[in-house]
């Protein structure tokens, strides 16, 4: 089951020892707090950024600006565009 909702990082913990004290993020969404592993995150999040979770691991770090950019793509898609290929793509 994929979890669609990004969780906000409220704290980074550990990191003194890769094995015994690995760096983890504490995340929160709607009052739910959880510790997540960062081994497979595309980049280490900063406090205040968001992460997408899968099976206890952060799989992607994103910012509010990333979400806003994605929304703007969708708004533009829904405008009536003469078919001229103005479809969404990767950020420039």
């Amino acid at each position, binding site marked *: *089951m*994929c979890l*669609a*909702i*990004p969780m*906000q990082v409220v704290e980074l913990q550990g990191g003194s020892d890769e*094995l015994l004290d690995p760096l983890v993020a504490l995340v929160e969404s709607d009052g739910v707090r959880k510790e997540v*592993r960062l*081994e*497979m*995150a*595309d980049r280490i999040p900063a406090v205040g950024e*968001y992460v*997408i979770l*899968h*099976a*206890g*691991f952060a*799989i*992607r770090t*994103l910012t*509010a600006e*990333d*979400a*806003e*950019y*994605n*929304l703007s*793509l*969708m*708004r533009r*898609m*829904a*405008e*009536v565009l003469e*078919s001229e*290929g103005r*479809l*969404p*793509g*990767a*950020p420039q």
Partner: protein
Amino acid sequence: MKCADEFRSREITAPLVEEIARSLVRPVRIMEVCGTHTMSIFRHGIRSLLSEGITLLSGPGCPVCVTPASHIDAFLAAADLPQVTIATFGDLIRVPGSGRSLAGARACGARVEIVYSPMDALALAQKEPERTVLFPAIGFETTVPTIAATILAAKRLGVTNFLIVAAGKTMPNALEALMADPELQVDGLLCPGHVSAIIGSEAYRPLANRYGLACAVAGFEPADILAGLLSLIRQINERRPDVENCYTRVVSAEGNVRAQQLIADVFEPADSEWRGLGVIPGSGLVLRNPYRSFDATKQLALPERPSREPKGCRCGEILKGRLLPPDCPLYGTACTPLQPVGPCMVSNEGTCAAYYRYSGRKTGTIHHEVPSLSAATTESS
């Protein structure tokens, strides 16, 4: 919070729905290959918003559903060993193998624990060194790196009572096999959101080029799915099959390189059996040599017997998009979410379970005598 709520807002979704209706010029067939897409489409009532010309098919996107009965049987054989604890994701425990399920084994006294992460299974192994903890490692590219990271941690920590059955699967070769099937008529592919987060949107380029298949990567919120469908319909209209990334906040063209590296460090590709689809070359992942000591199949000498599928079960054709759930003779009669026969009815994300819960169709289109299931099983082809 912009990161979630706005992707459900009518301000974003209503214009997309209108634009989809305006753009549709001929009937299109679109397949989604992600169980979470299947669920989200039903839960948000997206089918009811779309005109009849859009047919949505569910492909093999639910990891539990495509795990062959032979693997479930291996998990069950391990569960019967007195020193073994099975630590598994929750959606696996009700899936029947050739006969029983892990839930059935637990009722008979086997130790079966539900975990949220493979790391929790490793922690259980550390807490109970006198037992062997087996994690059934099923999943696609999103889940496999979590298992790889857990294996690496287990090796570094010197934990030897933690084992897995490597049953991970990869999407591109399976999609390739599906699209090569001349009987499958699909115009567009709604690409799985979080598999794509790992493998990258460019992974679908060969499908677009080779099969003229329109591809759109989409997230799981209503606006994400609608944007993906609109992108596909426009590509199909313009006869310009391409790969469009509509989930830019999570998916990049090249994917998550750190996660890809974790997979490559611990696993190597192998041929793999998919329930309903048969053996697909290079679509599975097995442990690399340095990590074979974590292989439960070898360490516990688990049986590797051919699969036996329940008689009458059409999950195979449903997973290939050839049949809709009500076309199965067992749907709604012998097979319901409370008493499931096939994996598509068991898993929350299975196509049949989603149909049953949300479509209002509680019975199939085919009505005939259903054989007794306890006695009748048949070899799968």
